[in-house]
């Protein structure tokens, strides 16, 4: 069973569209995250949720909106997609205390 699963694995869309990425974890963890990995492999935290409450919100355009319907799910909605949004987006989770991080296998977003 996959511990942290993301869908879709690949997402190709045009500029200006709105898209969502879904994430689910079956580890019983309290905290979930979204990370962005750019073309140079740099991993940058975007958001962190603890028990459905937003606790980290890095300087991310407000076109990105996370939503956590429950402790096991954290979705990422992106409005008005831009070319620069092309990247791999990773969902992760961690138990109370924050470590270790368990990552999903990523969603490769390509904006054309």
């Amino acid at each position, binding site marked *: 069973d996959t511990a942290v699963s993301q869908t879709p694995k690949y997402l190709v869309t045009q500029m200006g569209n709105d898209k969502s990425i879904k994430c689910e974890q079956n580890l019983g963890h309290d905290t979930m995250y979204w990370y962005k990995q750019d073309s140079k492999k740099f991993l940058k935290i975007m958001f962190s949720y603890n028990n459905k409450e937003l606790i980290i919100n890095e300087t991310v355009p407000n076109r990105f909106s996370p939503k956590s319907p429950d402790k096991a799910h954290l979705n990422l909605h992106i409005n008005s997609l831009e070319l620069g949004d092309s990247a791999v987006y990773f969902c992760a989770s961690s138990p109370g205390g924050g*470590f270790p*991080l368990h990552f999903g*296998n990523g969603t490769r977003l390509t904006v054309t």
Partner: protein
Amino acid sequence: QQQVKQSPQSLIVQKGGISIINCAYENTAFDYFPWYQQFPGKGPALLIAIRPDVSEKKEGRFTISFNKSAKQFSLHIMDSQPGDSATYFCAASIRGNDMRFGAGTRLTVKP
């Protein structure tokens, strides 16, 4: 501003050799220093981690060396194998929250 600086960007090692990746941090409040391994098409996975109250931690062929006064830590991979070829990330966090990653090192182990 990158809080964790990692070098080298890429590394090529012969099979059986030692791979060494270095990281330096700025925030003295960091108290947890993990290393993650990422294979193509996969998410990063925890390899080994250390806290600043110890200077070294070893798990199999992987060792973290930690120098608190210099604010540096490094990953040593002994007897490197082609299967170790991956991208390695150092990271640092405060009580496990808000994990900050280094820029990554692409390791290639040649047979």
